[in-house]
């Protein structure tokens, strides 16, 4: 086997190996500390699924070499509006569709705004973050008790199980893999992320692709909002508050190139989300408080980006 190919395979497998190592560490620590491993795993899957779904959709944005900082806030707003709609209609289907619809609209607004003003999309997402955070407070104040909007727990109890959540995640991941790898759209997205100038001269519309990316991401955010309601039907200003940052970390953890392009991969989001939750769980097992845990996560994030880009820097430095 050729050296370069082996190196390529190892590079591709590194995130998966990282997940395996974390999983092994969890099993060993769990056995040593005599905790219920099966229950622990279910809990990890439940915690990961929202980030995994949102991150999977967000891969489309990252592939373009851009990013969206407002994903967490968008998840919160979609969940809150979904909750309000459920309380009015008592229909889970309508609630789900509203969650997705709101998230897609937010994504569309971001991309269209960027296109009208000819701005990089991440700039509009920064503005959107402030707007959405304010909207969370307004929605809770106007439609809730002042501090929360509660969907009756009984309404979603039957859905709050690992199998259902995994099925939702699996369907969405398969949809994204299909669009990403087996359609023109996916090919164009990756090419655009790799070289926007050449993509334009190959007939690829940057604006159209950005809009599609934000729609796909919006579907992920909407499903994430729905799963957030299923997991914790009492919605507060803290709902999905850490999702935005967790999605960014998960995508990088999963081996997604920060610059996007041809090497982008959907599975990075899922691997990253599970790895991150496992890491958090392991830190809890070591009795590290959440503050220290966040710092460890941040340090690992920087380390992963450093390792992922060190090859590129090596190529650039001699020049």
């Amino acid at each position, binding site marked *: 086997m050729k050296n*370069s190919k082996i190196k390529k395979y190892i590079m591709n497998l590194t995130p998966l190996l990282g997940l395996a190592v974390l999983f092994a560490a969890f099993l060993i620590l769990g056995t040593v500390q005599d905790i219920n491993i099966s229950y622990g795993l279910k809990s990890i899957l439940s915690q990961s699924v929202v980030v995994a779904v949102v991150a999977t959709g967000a891969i489309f944005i990252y592939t373009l070499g851009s990013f969206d900082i407002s994903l967490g806030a968008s998840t919160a707003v979609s969940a809150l509006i979904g909750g309000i709609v459920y309380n009015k209609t008592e229909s889970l289907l309508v609630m789900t569709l509203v969650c997705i619809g709101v998230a897609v609209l937010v994504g569309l607004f971001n991309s269209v705004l960027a296109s009208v003003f000819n701005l990089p999309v991440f700039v509009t997402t920064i503005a959107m973050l402030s707007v959405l955070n304010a909207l969370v407070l307004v929605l809770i104040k106007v439609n809730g008790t002042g501090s929360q909007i509660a969907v009756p727990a009984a309404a979603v109890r039957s859905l709050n199980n690992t199998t259902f959540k995994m099925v939702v995640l699996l369907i969405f991941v398969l949809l994204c893999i299909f669009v990403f790898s*087996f*359609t*023109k759209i996916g090919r164009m997205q990756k090419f655009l992320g*790799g*070289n926007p100038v050449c993509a334009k001269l190959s*007939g690829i519309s940057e604006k159209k692709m950005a809009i599609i990316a934000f729609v796909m991401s919006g579907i992920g955010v909407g499903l994430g909002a729905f799963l957030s309601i299923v997991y914790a039907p009492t919605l507060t200003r803290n709902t999905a508050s850490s999702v935005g940052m967790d999605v960014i970390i998960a995508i990088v953890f999963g081996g997604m190139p920060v610059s996007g392009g041809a*090497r982008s991969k959907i599975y990075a989001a899922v691997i990253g989300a599970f790895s991150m939750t496992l890491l958090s769980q392991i830190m809890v097992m070591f009795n590290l408080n959440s503050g220290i845990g966040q710092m460890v996560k941040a340090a690992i994030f920087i380390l992963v980006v450093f390792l992922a880009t060190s090859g590129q820097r090596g190529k650039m430095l001699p020049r």
Partner: protein
Amino acid sequence: MGKEVIVEVKHIDKRFGSTIALNDVSIEVRRGEIQGLIGENGSGKSTVTSIISGMQKADGGQMFYQGEKWEPLSMLWALEKGIGMIVQENGTVPGISVAENIFLGETGRFKVFGKEGKKWGTVNRKEMMKEAQHALDTIGASHIRAEQPTASLDMQDRKLVEIVKIMIKNPEVLIVDETTTALSQIGRDIIYKIMNRMKEENKAVIFISHDLDEIMNVCDSLTVLRDGKIIITFSKEEFDEEQIKTSMIGREMQGDYYRGDYDGSCGDEVVLEVKDANLGDQLKNFNLQIHKGEIVGVGGLSHCGMHTLGKVLFGACKPQSGSVLVRGRELKGEADAMKEQIGYAAKDRDVESLCLNASIRDNIAVGGLDRFAVHNFLVLPGKEKKYVQKQIDDLSVKCAEMNQYVSALSGGNKQKVVFGKWIGRGSEILILDCPTRGVDIGVKQAMYQLMYRMKKEGKSIVIISEEMAELIGMADRLIVMKDGEIKKEFPRSESLSESDMIQYMI
């Protein structure tokens, strides 16, 4: 051959995966000489010079510089020690000024406060600009201003900035890797002047070019590489065009180099038309009709507007007034041009025509998605691979596999990928800006024959080029541009010469 050897390469090997790039290569470079390196694309010329200049390391063998073992740590390190290389593709940073590019990593030289070598301190920008401008003026590139953003320069001027960046270090050995192909005659003259000055100062130059006439004129000796091996070294008195060509490609060249006929006839149908177009100083009341089955050659100096014309014809640049009509209908943009079967190979290949961080497969497939995607949507890997493999086979792209990154290909093979992207989708009108830049004679000949076949099939081609011989050799009709205008139009003729064209260019 009594001159002192300054660089000695002994039994160098280099592999890229399964590809043997260099196999037991030994070269001697002497003081006071311009040593040429020639060979087909992928023969190993750039690999050997990149190893000498510290861009990459050899897998085996030894090198000596001024009699001492030479193991360069990086290009910067090598340049500091006296060996500098001007690379084939872009080597400047676009987001900073020309002066900052020239003194990249060395702005400490212009510190006002703080000690040199320490990171803190402030830079005297005025002084830096002054020195950069002086360096630009010295090589004859006064038209470039030191304070100008590098991104605002065209490819030729960026290349000149790169040359200044190397020359301010006053190297003992200068490596010029296919640089001249990116330059117009003015730019080429600047490089020739620099090379000759180095020769006079008893320094050495390694010169790589695919232009056989140029390399035979400029060099004192010429080493031919083929498939990673040294085939032969000719001294100046042994230079013979046919012999060099034969040793390069390993066989005698068969058939015509350019097209053999002087019949400039074509169809009556106007397939593409520029009408009263104005675009800054690049196009002024510009009118041009391209007919079915016609090869139109566009020549001129680098800034005459011909490269912009290429973009306008593809819909990538909209004229401020006037229009571009494709088969009588107004062209709306790049996607529209592709729908109308127009293809465009840009001059700046690595930036505008290829995605270097993607595979050969991705680059060829992106042009033909609407050809092989089921219902113009679904991409089936089997169909895609078949489509891409056909282009690779038809154009004989030298590669390990279709998933290989384009960045790992030689210049000529990159250009073949660009051709594959546009020919594969069945383009009826091809706009080719400097199509044979950095391409060896064997591939050039194949490309010319391909263009001629396409013409015979009723396809229309616009060749924009700084190589007049290429235009004269291939075009049915040749236009010479100057200051955004057509200065002269020549029909195809056996008697047309380069000097006929030059008088209208300058």
